[in-house]
């Protein structure tokens, strides 16, 4: 407050002060933009996850119906001491249908009967077959068994809807079916259990029988091939280009082309796979081996570019130190540069593989979009992958496939998180300071 403040420098002070408020305001605005952007993305992510989880969760449970079936050899149409093949041909559906008729003796009309049978999944006969194979002694006895309900019925029971008011239900069940279901519900003949079928089966036309196993195995095999091919090739290429290749026009051309390849639409790689690997080399169609090769071609540029960046980031002083001690060029790389670059290389690899895991378009071209019921046992078996399975189910008209779609997305996300977790662990192990 004294005269000291009012000296010649006060003009500068005033100006700085005036600009300071402006500068701080700008800083505040910038901070706000940042916080807004982050909260917006978190909100969108949350909405996405919430919608997927809320839609997908019901897929992990399945309604079972209790039925009393009489397994007489006569009804099954099998001889005594039937072989496995004879059992396979047994009239299981007839047995189930007759037990349904016994449960609801009033049902006489042909159309009504058909409606009644529709309450039980067609997979019920396989459950019966399994039971007889496991325990042939039950033939000729009456057993009380839990069978899978049909998808529409299952959805209604799972949603804990009020069956007394059919109009409130969003379902394709007829009024008759709802009445029967009400009757069974009152008798305690429904049970909602964990849907292990979803993790054990391949795809199916019947939603309640459709599972994720085939796609999961397909994805695992495909990624295995992708990793096995792309990681060593890409790292070797990056090391050669970064550490050994002479700098001339050829290496420039290679470099430009690698960068261009990273930007090529993935479906083009699918066309290449179709033309080269399937049509020319006659590799099996729809097989993870072809999918893996195509996807590794797609991920190679990503891994090469990030590996080169990681190698470049290793300080030259380390190379000099090793060279100065008489390490050969390859020793310099394998003993010092590569270990230090490994965390970065692994990050790039995981980004590439995550991209490959979510890729659909190139796999459509090589036939991995086919309807595959069997679970692939090797890389040459026909298979599909998780994102393609999502695509297929999203296209299906049955309501139950909607929840399967979301559930498949959840499985895909868990797969991705697991992969990333492994990468983080590996990176931690390789991380060294210098």
């Amino acid at each position, binding site marked *: 407050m004294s005269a000291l403040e009012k000296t010649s420098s006060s003009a500068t002070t005033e100006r700085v002060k005036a600009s300071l408020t402006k500068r701080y305001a700008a800083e505040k605005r910038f901070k706000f933009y940042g916080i807004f952007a982050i909260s917006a993305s978190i909100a969108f992510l949350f909405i996405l996850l919430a919608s997927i989880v809320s839609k997908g969760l019901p897929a992990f449970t399945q309604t079972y119906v209790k039925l009393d079936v009489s397994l007489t050899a006569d009804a099954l149409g099998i001889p005594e001491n039937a072989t496995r093949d004879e059992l396979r041909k047994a009239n299981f559906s007839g047995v189930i249908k007759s037990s349904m008729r016994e449960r609801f003796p009033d049902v006489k009309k042909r159309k009504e009967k058909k409606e009644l049978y529709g309450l039980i999944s067609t997979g019920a006969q396989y459950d019966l077959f399994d039971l007889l194979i496991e325990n042939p002694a039950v033939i000729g006895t009456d057993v009380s068994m839990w069978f899978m309900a049909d998808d529409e019925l299952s959805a209604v029971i799972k949603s804990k809807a009020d069956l007394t008011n059919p109009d409130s239900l969003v379902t394709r069940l007829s009024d008759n079916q709802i009445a029967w279901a009400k009757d069974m519900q009152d008798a305690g003949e429904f049970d909602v259990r964990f849907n292990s079928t979803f993790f054990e089966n391949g795809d199916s036309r019947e939603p309640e029988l459709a599972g994720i196993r085939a796609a999961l195995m397909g994805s695992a095999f495909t990624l295995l091939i992708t990793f096995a091919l792309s990681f060593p090739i890409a790292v070797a290429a990056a090391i050669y280009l970064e*550490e*050994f290749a002479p700098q001339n026009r050829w290496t420039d051309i290679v470099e430009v082309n690698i960068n261009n390849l990273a930007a090529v639409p993935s479906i083009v790689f699918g066309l290449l796979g179709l033309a080269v690997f399937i049509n020319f080399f006659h590799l099996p169609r729809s097989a993870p081996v072809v999918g893996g090769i195509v996807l590794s071609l797609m991920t190679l540029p990503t891994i090469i570019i990030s590996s080169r960046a990681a190698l470049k980031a290793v300080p030259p002083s*380390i190379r000099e130190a090793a060279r100065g*001690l*008489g*390490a050969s060029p390859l020793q310099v790389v394998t003993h010092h540069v590569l270990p230090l670059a490994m965390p970065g290389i692994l990050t790039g690899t995981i980004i590439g593989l995550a991209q490959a895991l979510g890729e659909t378009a190139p796999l459509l071209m090589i036939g991995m979009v086919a309807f595959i019921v069997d679970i692939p046992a090797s890389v040459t078996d026909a298979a599909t992958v998780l994102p393609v399975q999502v695509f297929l189910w999203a296209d299906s008209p049955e309501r139950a496939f909607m929840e399967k779609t979301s559930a498949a997305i959840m499985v895909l996300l868990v797969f991705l998180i697991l992969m990333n977790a492994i990468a983080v662990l590996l990176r931690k192990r390789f991380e060294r300071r210098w």
Partner: protein
Amino acid sequence: MNTLAASDILNKPTDKVTSVPDTAQEAFDKLTETVGTPTVENPKMQTRNVNVFYGEKQAIFDVDLDIGQNEVIAMIGPSGCGKSTFLRCLNRMNDTIPTCRVTGQMSLDGEDLYGADLDPVLLRARVGMVFQKPNPFAKSIYDNVAYGPRIHGLASNRAELDDIVVDSLRKAGLYDEVKDRIDAPGTSLSGGQQQRLCIARTIAVSPEVILMDEPCSALDPIATARIEELIDELRENFAIAIVTHSMQQAARVSQRTAYFHLGKLVEVDDTNAVFTNPQHELTENYITGRFG
């Protein structure tokens, strides 16, 4: 290629040299032969008519210089004078710079350094190098020192390797400080200790010559004094060529001193002679602090 770009080395500031007095500059321009005695009686390394080019630009002009057995030779001169470039030619560390070209003769015990039958990897095992910035590997102290013997197969078993490591650390005057944490990372040491670790790592290979490129420029005075002491001790077993910016350091540790200026070797003689009675005007200007 991940190498130092030649321009990085050439772009070191040289503008200070412009303040050289005219008479001295004239004397330099006329200079065709090094002042003093570049040769010694019993040389470990010899260089004759060495010219070094980075692309079109010549960095070293016709340098003749011997490095004697068991001597410390200091190379001094203003920034950009080529002393580091010359040093790095002595164990072919410049090979990795694609544009770098070396002509003339350089030899180690009479063997041509750039000859077809001399492998650069073997050469670097015989001519070790300590760098300006301490650069320990991202490994334990033990593994840092053991690395050279391991890749060259100098120890046939673990006990021998242990001996080499302990012996090298002792020679580098580091053993007592690190004997309790020999498995700790080399990077956990202080700057001065790291540099001594780098020296231990170099002598573990039992080289014949050690090249030191400003080994103390990143260190504090106490660590510097420790290293200088060490250099004096190491002279018993090795020939040492040291590039330094500090004239005091050159005076303290070396027996002979070579003064470089703009790529030419201006003067080389016994350290005492160079510092007390420089023959060339440029040398005198430099050591009296008139420029540089």
